[in-house]
């Protein structure tokens, strides 16, 4: 054992020395943790780099958590959206729903009957033609399993096949079904052949989707390789990528080096300090796009002292918004107006914003009878997320000025979430920091899971309960399909209530930074499908 310790000491020192030689991109890559880097990919590289139709997507975590497109509600979004397709696709920046597997759709006067015309000549990867039956089967099965994001279909009463190319959805209440059908999770159309008699997905089932890429091979938790489906209805050109590798590369420094050497085509989640340097590298392209991800810090509205609205408002005034945006995310984001992120409908700069103001915070604390502070708060964040950690540290420094002690605890997501749902109410955190992103491109997705009253806490980790707010967003959601403008103004109104109640810190709406090789063309990010790269649109010049 002593030998081992000596070895570790030496390794640490070597790592320290090597990091000292950093800053020069041409240095051979030596990642900090020897067990993680992509050995095989590095060996393949010289042979593969010559072929332009080979793409590697360097991800920060596992490529997927479930093969079943009805169940997957996590990382698999970027993989499944290249293998499967929805009826329609939403373009949030143009606020348009575009046809995909459905050529067109109509909605009845009362908003309760939606009819989709299925595209002619679409084939599944196993060669079968796509029909209205498959659409009915897929959505029925997804609803029946009831896992993941399947609740998006909760308004659907029944689905009927009118003719081989027409399918009709009957709803029990009004809901924007076109948005539902465009969702990046749980809205995929797939073939019956990949499901066994127990309604279980056959592991790594191949040829089940209509998407441009089909599964070639996979190493669970590490990488997935897909190759082109030759009969894809969208067609193929020579320049398209014929093979795409989705690869987990945990260390941000390694992801950066893979982009610099051309080993990876696209990389995500690089530190902001790296981005400014990469911008000056001619072999690398950096694009900054709005994302629907925002950082929030939910206040525990049921536990003293934060059950007092004045104290919550004081804490909202104490947060160093601009400092966090400038320091933690390098200015790649903007302070939130309420819960709905910039770029999504329901966002409004008419909403009030809390601006950092320590004097105002002191006043409010005095009104609450706690002029001298003197209490302790527990903040939890997801361990490993540097942005959340740094934001918490900056907040701690501000709260110290109010004589409030902030304990910062980084926990693995599961433990952080378990603690928030703990039956021991006193043990729960005071401030829950997390990123939120949409399943459905609608403000309802941002407001319902997070602040609608819940019997048992799931994602309403502010434990917020306000019947006025609940009914406002429920009504707004139902109005979406028939009276969009009214719905939007109601969603804005609902957020005003949240802000007055200071149910949460609304910190910033983040921009996504995509780092790609310099000669990649056709890259366009769609914030309704976070972390998804539609590889069929891309090619190298």
């Amino acid at each position: 054992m002593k030998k081992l310790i000596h070895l570790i000491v030496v390794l640490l020192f070597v790592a320290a020395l090597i990091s000292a030689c950093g800053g020069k991109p041409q240095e051979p890559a030596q990642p900090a943790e020897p067990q993680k880097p992509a050995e095989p990919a590095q060996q393949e590289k010289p042979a593969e780099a010559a072929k332009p139709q080979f793409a590697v997507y360097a991800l920060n975590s596992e490529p997927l958590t479930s093969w079943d497109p009805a169940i997957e509600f996590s990382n698999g979004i970027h993989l499944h959206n290249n293998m499967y397709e929805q009826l329609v696709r939403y373009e949030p920046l143009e606020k348009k729903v575009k046809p995909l597997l459905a050529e067109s759709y109509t909605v009845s006067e009362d908003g309760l009957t939606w009819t989709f015309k299925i595209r002619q000549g679409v084939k599944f990867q196993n060669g079968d033609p796509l029909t209205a039956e498959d659409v009915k089967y897929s959505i029925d099965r997804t609803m029946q399993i009831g896992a993941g994001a399947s609740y998006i279909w909760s308004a659907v009463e029944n689905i009927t096949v009118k003719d081989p190319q027409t399918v009709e959805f009957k709803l029990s209440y009004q809901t924007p079904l076109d948005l539902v059908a465009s969702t990046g999770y749980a809205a995929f159309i797939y073939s019956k052949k990949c499901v066994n008699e127990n309604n279980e997905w056959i592991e790594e089932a191949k040829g089940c989707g209509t998407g441009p890429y089909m599964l070639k091979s996979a190493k669970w938790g590490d990488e997935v390789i897909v190759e082109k489906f030759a009969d894809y209805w969208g067609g193929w050109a020579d320049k398209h990528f014929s093979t795409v590798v989705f690869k987990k590369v945990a260390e941000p420094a390694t992801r950066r080096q893979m982009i610099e050497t051309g080993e990876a085509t696209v990389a995500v989640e690089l530190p902001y300090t790296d981005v400014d340097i990469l911008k000056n590298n001619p072999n690398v392209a950096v694009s900054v796009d709005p994302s629907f991800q925002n950082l929030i810090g939910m206040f525990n509205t049921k536990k003293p002292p934060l059950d007092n609205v004045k104290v919550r408002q004081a804490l909202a005034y104490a947060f160093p918004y601009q400092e966090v945006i400038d320091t933690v995310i390098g200015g790649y984001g903007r302070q939130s107006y309420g819960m709905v992120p910039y770029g999504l409908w329901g966002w409004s700069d008419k909403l009030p914003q809390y601006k950092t103001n320590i004097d105002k915070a002191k006043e409010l604390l005095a009104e609450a009878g706690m002029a001298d502070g003197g209490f302790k708060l527990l903040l939890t964040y997801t361990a490993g997320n540097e942005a959340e950690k740094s934001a918490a540290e900056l907040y701690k420094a501000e709260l110290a000025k109010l004589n409030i002690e902030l304990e910062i605890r980084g926990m693995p997501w599961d433990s952080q979430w378990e603690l928030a749902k703990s039956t021991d109410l006193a043990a729960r955190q005071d401030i829950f920091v997390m990123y939120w992103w949409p399943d459905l491109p609608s403000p309802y997705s941002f407001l319902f899971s997070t602040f609608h009253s819940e019997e048992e806490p799931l994602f309403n980790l502010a434990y917020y309960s306000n019947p006025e707010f609940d009914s406002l967003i429920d009504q707004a959601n139902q109005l979406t399909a028939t009276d969009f403008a009214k719905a939007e103004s109601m969603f804005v109104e609902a957020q005003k209530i949240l802000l007055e109640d200071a149910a949460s810190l609304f910190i910033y709406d983040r921009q996504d930074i995509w780092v790609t090789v310099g000669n990649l063309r056709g890259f366009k990010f769609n914030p309704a499908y976070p972390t998804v790269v539609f590889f069929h649109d891309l090619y190298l010049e």
Partner: protein
Amino acid sequence: MRWLSDFIKTLQPTIREWRLSFYLLNRNWLQRVALIVIALLVLIAIFAPLISPYPSHAISATNPKDKLLPPSSRYLFGTDELGRDLFSRVIFGTRISLQTALIAVGLALLIGVPLGAIAGGLGGAADEIIMRITDIFLSFPPLLLAIAISAFLGPSLQNAMLAIAVSWWPWYTRIIRGQAVSIRERQFVRAARAIGTPTFRIIFSHILPNTMAPVIVQASMDIGGVILTIAALSFLGLGAQPPTPEWGLLISTSRTYFLNAWWYSTFPGIAIFVTVLVFNLIGDGVREVLDPRTRKF
């Protein structure tokens, strides 16, 4: 006051022994350097608030306008991602590392030594039970066991210390037990037993004092290992929590920035390296001096 002079008289051989050991230890230049460095580290730990130029940076203050600056006369070791002075943070880290290592080893000794003495002194079923329990603990890789325990208790520096103590004590139990078994059969212990001294008195005042030398060696060598383990736990997010300036946590955070800010991981890394090295050197020295076979005059 007669009892006091009596007491000093009985202590005299021990003091002489310690002074001799220290003299022998000090004679080897490598160990002398190590001793000096350890003394320096202890001084740094005690006087951290006086030495560090920005003591507030080690507690909660932030200074974002100076983020990630390279080393300069103003910031000797550069600054971190929130503009805090790394020199101050590394100095305060010395305090944390030494403190936690001493407490963790102390706790492990507190559990391990009495258990070992009981096992060796009593023999029979008690011995069997205690030693099989230590076998169970020893069958886990120590870092893995510490990770499991601190993940279970929840991440904090205190829990990390507990976790290390819990995974470390069996080593001491095993050493003490081995010694105690041989001492138990010596004449003076038999004599004590013959005049009717209670068993526990025999174990704790006759056997235990004579088993301490190898444990002292082991404990002094372990300090380095424990510092490293605490750093490893903090690196994994299971030990110190931000903004505590713990070395392992500093290195863990610095991974994100290390391609642009070499100083961030380098200085905490050197601090760990030097500290663990000198403790291991001293441990080796103490072993040489206390072991009659390697002891040279």
